[in-house]
């Protein structure tokens, strides 16, 4: 187990990167705390796999350093880093038995057979495959194979970190849930440092203590699932996390008031007048349809998704989403909306602006 430090790290696939656009991974400083479970979340091509490959040593960064427990491993090969990785497509040694698969990393390191046998039993119990040890790995299902590759990673006691590269992509939906739960339990019981790359927000939010959201080669926010939901640091986080994503409205902000199309919206804090492209963002969960108070909207359609209703409405020319409780009746007179002032965030050029006063905490 180890703390992993990224120091000034950046990577470009081009030999001579010129501007910032040439970098697949833009400059980044971050500590991955020992024993934490992280998720790297972002859409395809955002640089999350690049970052993972740099940590595992399959890729060498164009600048910066990477440290495991303050030891510089930037140029160390994968084998020396003592990490384990579970890949998108299950990698098992087909011709070996499950037992030999699990024993493989230990045998390659010359551990003696009695230790290997004991350790394999232990791991098989952890991943729930004790009764399959004698079987050939060939012919097992994708979920069993992913468990084996996970087990192969954990079999080494001194493993620094477990890396997951979209490990549930090829798993059947009903097994996904089970594997994720098992993974979470393993993390809880054994406390490995885990880094989990995914583009699925549910996977990220349920798995990780801290979610690292990446967008266009940049880490836009690192936070607990709660922080990402309540205070998205970047409009991308607001849009990407949540279903549907955060509503964004072009606005003018003065003090503790925002003005959309000249209409006043109260805010949870007081702001210095932000510059650039100013928007307010509010999650659909914090928008309420009312009959009397608030600003006028035109409802376009209502989607009932079971647990709640999603109302699509037109608010001064911008489409906004509103989440209404399953039991709420949406009458013909509900033509106005109210925003929870404490949950309205202000963005300037896509980045969140913190309020001057700290009223939002109280709200």
């Amino acid at each position: 187990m180890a703390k992993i430090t990224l120091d000034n790290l950046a990577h470009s696939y081009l030999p001579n990167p010129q501007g910032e656009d040439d970098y697949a991974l833009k400059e980044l400083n971050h500590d991955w705390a020992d024993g934490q479970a992280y998720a790297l979340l972002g859409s395809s091509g955002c640089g999350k796999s690049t970052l993972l490959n740099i940590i595992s040593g399959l890729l060498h960064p164009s600048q910066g350093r990477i440290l495991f427990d303050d030891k510089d491993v930037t140029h160390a090969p994968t084998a020396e880093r003592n990490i384990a990785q579970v890949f998108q497509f299950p990698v098992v040694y087909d011709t070996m038995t499950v037992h030999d698969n699990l024993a493989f990393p230990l045998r390659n390191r010359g551990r003696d057979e009695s230790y290997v046998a004991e350790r394999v039993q232990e791991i098989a119990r952890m991943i729930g495959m004790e009764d399959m040890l004698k079987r050939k790995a060939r012919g097992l299902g994708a979920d069993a194979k992913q468990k084996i590759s996970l087990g192969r990673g954990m079999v080494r006691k001194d493993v620094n970190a477990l890396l997951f590269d979209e490990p549930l992509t090829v798993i059947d939906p009903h097994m996904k849930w089970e594997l994720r739960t098992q993974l979470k339990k393993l993390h809880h019981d054994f406390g490995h440092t885990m880094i989990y790359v995914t583009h699925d927000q549910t996977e990220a939010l349920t798995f990780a203590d801290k979610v690292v959201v990446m967008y266009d080669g940049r880490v836009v926010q690192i936070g607990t699932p709660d922080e990402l939901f309540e205070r998205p640091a970047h409009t991308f986080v607001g849009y990407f996390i949540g279903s549907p994503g955060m509503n964004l409205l072009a606005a003018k902000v003065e003090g503790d008031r925002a003005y959309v199309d000249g209409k006043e919206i109260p805010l949870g804090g007081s702001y210095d007048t932000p510059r650039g492209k100013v928007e307010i963002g509010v999650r659909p969960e914090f928008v309420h349809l009312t009959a009397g108070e608030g600003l006028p909207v035109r409802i376009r359609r209502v989607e009932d998704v079971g647990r709640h209703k999603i109302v699509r409405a037109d608010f001064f020319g911008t489409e906004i989403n509103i989440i209404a409780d399953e039991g709420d009746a949406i009458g013909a007179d509900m033509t106005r909306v109210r925003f929870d002032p404490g949950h309205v965030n202000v963005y300037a050029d896509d980045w969140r602006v913190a309020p001057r006063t700290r009223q939002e905490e109280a709200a």
Partner: protein
Amino acid sequence: MQTKTVNQKAWFLVLPVLVLVAFSAVIPLMTVVNYSIQDTFGGEFFSLEDKLMWFREMLESQRMWDALGRQLMFSGIILAIEVPLGVFVALNMPKSGFWASFCLVMMSLPLLIPWNVVGTIWQIFGRVDIGLLGNTLDALGIDYNYTQDTFDAWVTIIVMDVWHWTSLVALLAYAGLKSIPDAYYQAAEIDQASRWKVFRYIELPKMMGVLMIAILLRFMDSFMIYTEPFVVTGGGPGNATTLLSIDLVKMALGQFDLGPAAAFSIMYFLVILAISWVFYTVMTNLDKRGM
């Protein structure tokens, strides 16, 4: 309800294939069967008292058993060389870029040369008086003469076959290797697998399917090889390189013993069929049980 309409026109669509197969396989094979149970004198056929006489005679013929022995030895040797060599070449070929294409083209060249041309190339190449190989060996003081010495003749036809066909094994093995996702190599590196273990547990299992096809193709092809050794050695010195098909042609066209030759070619055909079938069954079963 939909009922199937009877439409016999479909037969016309099958007809071309039937005609083609009839002329290319069925009719020639039946002609051979016909020869094998008759006796011939100058183009006229007489029915045999003992219908299986030629088969019996062939089974008792030492000459045929010797030829079969030489044939098995030839196929065995070339397989033992070409398969490991082909795999070795494939493992060392560049995986991408200009040199990968370059290697692929260079490797394909021998495969494009017709059999009798290959034979002629090696026949001249090995000649002691004017051939590059023969003359060089002679100048180095090595006694080499494929027309006189049995061992030299065998070395020549085997090296020729290896030169001609190793590319095929290499290209098939290369295709198998290319289909292995990078993640396997990355996982092996993380597991600190040695180069040999990567080969044994990742590359070899993934190549097994194409290697099986390569071995099958090379076995069948080498077992019925005719042109190349015939052009180089003519089956000599003596009968030293008279492989099955060379002997067969000698018997059928040289001695005009059509009956025994026909009986013999039917047995020859059955042997190839049987060996290929056994081979295929064993390999697919191995595959199923997971080696």
